């Protein structure tokens, strides 16, 4: 299914459906030709920030540009001068890496102006409704009202799992890391099968199990672009319900799964749920991938590349969606850690 737009008004109205929320004070890059991502960034606060952002986006686009690639730049801001400067800077930078910018638009709530051709027009509710109806017909979820609403979806009721945590920790001391890892892998498999929200008991047990880096890696390794949506669902829910002391691994897994699913905005929001003051190396790495605009397909290749020192036959719980012949994470890292990594 494709969302085909015919006019500038329709192009602007399509933006929330492309990125999952309605952006404000943002510059949005929309591919017109070529297999490029959609990009959204806050309008730069000053020239220096603007230069950095433009360079960064251009660098990432250059990795994926094909001959003939082109994009539209839409600046959604109250300041037409900022829109002119930012879109102009993007056009110059993108052009230098082989991506044309035939359309540069400044848009506010009720009108738009296209700088290249000097045309302008009105934005209409009818167009927004038409695009919304088309996406409903495609079976797509409707966009959230704002990026803040996307972030809020990752903040749930953390009380019930907080209550369940002491018992989960006590039970973990009476088990072994390998047993808890095997249970976590099996529980993930059950989620893949039924899609049901985890109980507070299972949620607490899984969050405690994730404090062991090897267990976390087994669940991380299960992720692929084919099942990323299910992982996003699981880890979004658990990130929202996890108390501070056990949230960093779940938030990082949510960030990674969101990136793998193509949703960079949700990925950033997930990483924001790593409690302030806690340093968690997986979160830093996922943030690096997001900042540099890595395409999720690169993970498939990295995941498929087995390195000899990564294989250890001593412990191989059945990975939920594992296929014969794929590798599992190695166990030659540091001993299991009990608590978020520092």
């Amino acid at each position, binding site marked *: 299914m494709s969302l085909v737009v015919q006019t500038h008004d329709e192009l602007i109205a399509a933006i929330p459906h492309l990125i999952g929320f309605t952006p404000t004070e943002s510059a949005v890059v929309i591919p017109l030709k070529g297999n490029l991502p959609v990009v*959204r960034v806050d309008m730069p606060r000053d020239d220096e920030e603007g230069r950095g952002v433009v360079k960064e986006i251009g660098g990432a686009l250059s990795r994926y540009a094909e001959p003939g690639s082109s994009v539209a730049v839409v600046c959604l801001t109250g300041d037409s001068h900022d829109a002119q400067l930012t879109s102009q800077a993007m056009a110059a930078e993108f052009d230098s890496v082989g991506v044309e910018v035939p359309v540069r638009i400044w848009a506010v709530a009720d009108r738009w102006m296209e700088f290249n051709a000097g045309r302008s027009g009105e934005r209409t509710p009818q167009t927004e409704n038409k695009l919304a109806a088309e996406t409903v017909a495609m079976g797509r979820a409707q966009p959230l009202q704002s990026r803040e609403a996307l972030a809020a979806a990752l903040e749930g009721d953390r009380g019930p799992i907080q209550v369940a945590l002491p018992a989960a920790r006590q039970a973990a001391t009476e088990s072994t890391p390998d047993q808890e890892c095997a249970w976590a892998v099996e529980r993930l498999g059950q989620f893949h099968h039924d899609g049901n929200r985890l109980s507070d008991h299972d949620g607490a047990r899984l969050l405690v199990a994730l404090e062991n880096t090897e267990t976390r890696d087994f669940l991380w390794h299960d992720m692929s*672009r084919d099942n990323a949506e299910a992982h996003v669902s699981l880890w979004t829910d658990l990130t929202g319900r996890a108390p501070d002391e056990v949230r960093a691994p779940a938030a990082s897994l949510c960030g990674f799964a969101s990136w793998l699913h193509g949703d960079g905005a949700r990925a950033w929001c997930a990483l924001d749920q790593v409690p302030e003051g806690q340093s968690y*190396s*997986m979160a830093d790495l996922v943030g690096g*991938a997001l900042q540099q605009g890595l395409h999720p397909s690169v993970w498939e290749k990295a995941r498929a590349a087995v390195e000899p020192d990564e294989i250890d036959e001593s412990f191989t719980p059945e990975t939920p969606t594992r296929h014969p012949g794929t590798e599992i994470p190695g166990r030659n890292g540091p001993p299991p*850690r009990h608590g978020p990594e520092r």
Partner: protein
Amino acid sequence: MDLTDDHGSVQEARLARLIEPQPENGRDRPRIDWINEPKASSRQEEGRHA
């Protein structure tokens, strides 16, 4: 900050190898939302403009 240094797990090391080292102030840069088409889902729109 070099994200490729000293990773305690195979998965982290694998991801680190894909990322270019970032400058010290890398975390202060504005966040860029990259939206890529999922491999297999209903989200298969494209912004095409005539």
